[in-house]
């Protein structure tokens, strides 16, 4: 098991590559999910504002 994490002495290079890959992939997923949520609540707010204006 220790050998596995040691990666024949290249641990720093191998694990940092996989770590960065994970971060890049996560960022790709999180960005649109958050953008969608933000947009929907923004639209909801402007809708409420429009309704208040009508009264």
């Amino acid at each position, binding site marked *: 098991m220790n050998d596995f994490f040691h*990666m024949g002495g290249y641990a720093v290079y191998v694990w940092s590559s996989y770590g960065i890959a994970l971060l890049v*992939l996560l960022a*790709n997923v999180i960005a649109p999910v958050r953008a969608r949520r933000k947009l929907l609540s923004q639209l909801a707010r402007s809708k409420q504002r429009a309704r208040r204006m009508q009264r």
Partner: protein
Amino acid sequence: MLRFFHQLASPRHFYRISGKLIPWLALACLVFTLTGVYQGLVVAPTDYQQGDSYRIMFIHVPAAWMSLFIYMVMAAAGVIGLVWHIKLAEIVAISSAHIGASFTFLALITGSIWGKPMWGTWWVWDARLTSELILLFLYLGVIALYNAVEDRRTAARATSILALVGVVNIPIIHYSVEWWNTLHQGPTVTKFDAPSIDLRMLIPLLLMAVAFKIFYAVVLLLRARVEVLQRERNSAWVQELVKEHE
């Protein structure tokens, strides 16, 4: 079948169908990634020349393939949007730019991390590395141009042309290792004769390639959905959606 594609081109149906598709694609992507990483880090044998450092390949090479593949999709979608004025094609083009840029970044950075122990340097200004860096700048240029123009449709048209011009760079990247002398190794998989790579190394490489392709599809759909909502925000069906969200 034709009706299906016709419906897909309508923003409302696209939003509905993509919403159903995403969980399944995400699941498939997860399965491919996990088996790919397991095969790549555990099952694949240590390389006789590069030791275990070569395991970076299972990220680096699929990411580099994606950087080229996504660029071609982006340029093709741009042309379709330009010629037939299909909104969804414009959306695919600009959404691809963001994903393509991140895969290009990933290919460059993992290449650099791999280069340090193998070549003794993080970076060399050779043909392969430089043309890939130009690809990153092309992606960033497309994104910047799209954001700089106020009107979405004009922006889409301008970026399509930029993306199209940048296609010149794609064959340069691909053939750079054959045309110029370079530190970067030549192709081992996409040769016409049998690939010169152990099967236990080839399998995780292909698994990761498929995983990244599916990942691209998932993020493309996620991004396109937001873009569709943004553009259709005054339509009845989006207003209906907002009501549910409240």
